[in-house]
């Protein structure tokens, strides 16, 4: 539990998140218009999306299936009967004057999500519901001093709104929740989780209370578009609320906006007015009825999800919870690891993947999919160490080249002549030369200064350009010094 230390004592943050995840469909939820990102304004708009007179919605089957898949991935109850409602309000980017959403009877009910915290512990957060709804269009405010421009390309795109219970207790937990949710969505393939392009957006409900006290009044921070900003916005908002309360004020329930330049939350003027959404079942649509067999069939096609994969990695590969967590976070990483680990020591494979590879990728700003070092090549490198072709130290050098050029490790070793020297005669010759050049130090060693052993090893390795087999060097050196 991380409390905020205020002037008057400790405060606990209570957070619930509403995530809008755009479904990776070709066409919109209720129209046949395309969903691709970055198209010319209003070019991916049907008359249905623009709410022309007489236009009617017809639901996209794929979107229904993805909502069910995601619900199953969240271990949630799938409601075989759900209802589409109209949420009525006027806004520039909402052409019909209502959003088709699900209110009292969503397609997915209660589920759960396990947070993997950085310290290796885990915590379960409740999912309240998941429902299907339409996205709104986009208002552009910077094109004209007195006008807003409306692009309806996004209007009608399918969203899953995934609502958590107010179970999160810190900004870090909120971050972990989003990372985990994104991971599950990507495993399932229902959403690409790309927050920069807006295909995953987050509304944060934040309140504070004295530890153990009833919930305080919450503020909703709308449409935060990166995990980093979610963490920053929650931290800012919680401290703001502490300040207000400690100064004797009260929190007003309101919608706030995260200002990405000033890094503050501020009240949204457009949402000041109290809403009365007048939900009612959309008479253009009928209740959505799911066949239980269909749901069962979908269940069978679900991929292994991060939690199950993590458990398997710990069990089968004997990895630490932390390593397993890092590896399963992205399916591509987990797959990469499993290719490397196949027929090799999994522990060594995990160390290479989570250590060297992730470090290099991170530094280069690359995703695992773009890794210059293929899983096969990394496996080959590990094999070269295992069969004593190269030493672990040389391997690092080879890896560096692999990352730069994408070449096969064996080719690099050959080209650069890095093959380990295992010829005892050659090593003996090198050792003899080192001992002969350092007679004084040999005396010191023999009179009890054991620490000098490392010096001799270093000199031998230097003389052999690091290629001497370290085990042989140790063995022969010991014999010669002691003998």
């Amino acid at each position: 539990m991380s409390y905020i230390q205020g002037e008057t004592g400790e405060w606990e943050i209570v957070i619930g998140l509403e995530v809008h995840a755009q479904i990776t469909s070709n066409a919109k939820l209720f129209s046949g218009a395309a969903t691709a990102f970055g198209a010319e304004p209003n070019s991916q708009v049907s008359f249905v999306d623009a709410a022309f007179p007489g236009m009617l919605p017809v639901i996209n089957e794929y979107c229904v299936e993805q909502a069910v898949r995601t619900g199953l991935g969240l271990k949630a109850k799938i409601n075989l009967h759900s209802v589409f409602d109209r949420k009525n309000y006027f806004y520039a980017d909402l052409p019909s004057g209502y959003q088709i959403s699900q209110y009292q009877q969503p397609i997915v009910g209660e589920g759960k999500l396990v947070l993997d915290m950085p310290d290796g512990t885990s915590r379960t957060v409740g999912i309240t519901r998941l429902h299907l709804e339409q996205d709104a269009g986009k208002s552009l405010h910077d094109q004209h001093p007195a006008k807003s421009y409306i692009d309806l390309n996004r209007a009608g795109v399918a969203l899953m709104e995934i609502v958590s219970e107010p179970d999160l207790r810190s900004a870090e937990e909120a971050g972990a929740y989003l990372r985990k949710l994104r991971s599950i969505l990507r495993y399932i393939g229902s959403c690409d989780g790309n927050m920069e392009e807006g295909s995953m957006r987050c509304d944060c409900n934040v309140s504070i209370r004295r530890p153990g006290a009833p919930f305080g009044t919450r503020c909703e921070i709308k449409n935060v578009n990166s995990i980093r900003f979610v963490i920053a916005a929650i931290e800012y908002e919680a401290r703001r609320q502490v300040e207000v309360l400690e100064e004797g004020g009260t929190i007003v329930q309101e919608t706030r906006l995260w200002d990405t330049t000033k890094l503050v939350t501020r009240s949204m003027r457009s949402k000041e007015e109290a809403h009365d959404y007048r939900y009612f079942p959309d008479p253009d649509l009928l209740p959505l009825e799911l066949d239980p067999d269909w749901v069962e069939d979908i269940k069978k096609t679900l991929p292994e999800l991060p939690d199950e994969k993590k458990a398997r990695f710990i069990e089968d590969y004997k990895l630490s919870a932390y390593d397993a967590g890092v590896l399963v976070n992205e399916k591509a990483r987990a797959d990469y690891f499993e290719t490397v680990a196949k027929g090799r020591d999994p522990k060594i494979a995990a160390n290479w993947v989570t250590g060297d590879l992730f470090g290099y990728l991170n530094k280069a700003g690359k995703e695992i999919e773009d890794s210059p070092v293929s899983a096969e090549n990394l496996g080959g490198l590990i094999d070269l160490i295992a069969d004593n072709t190269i030493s672990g130290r040389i391997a690092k050098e080879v890896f560096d080249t692999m990352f730069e050029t994408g070449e096969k490790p064996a080719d690099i070793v050959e080209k650069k002549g890095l093959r380990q020297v295992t010829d005892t005669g050659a090593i003996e010759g090198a050792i003899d030369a080192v001992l002969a050049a350092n007679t004084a130090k040999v005396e010191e060693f023999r009179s009890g200064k054991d620490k000098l052993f490392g010096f001799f090893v270093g000199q031998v390795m230097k003389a052999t350009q690091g290629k001497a087999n370290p085990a042989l060097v140790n063995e022969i050196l010991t014999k010669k010094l002691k003998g």
Partner: protein
Amino acid sequence: MSLDKATVAKIAHLARIRVPEEELEHLAGELSQILGFIEQLNEVDTDNVPPLASTAAQKLRRRPDVVTDGGYADAVLQNGPETAEGYFVVPKVVE
């Protein structure tokens, strides 16, 4: 249920319909009369009666996820009272 002027003004704003102040009184009377008429329904026993939203006795039909529509920005915009550079244009919205 009898509606007063303030309530009518509130509903009218919710519906985004400008109603001149001098019409509110009369409108409140008319709407109250209609509400009085529909409140006859309170005589009907509807305990344990499920609500009926549609008489269409079928399941919601689903369409395949195929792009079949859109791609005609000009047609979408051609009826627009004010458009510019491929956008609909409205007075500036402050967020």
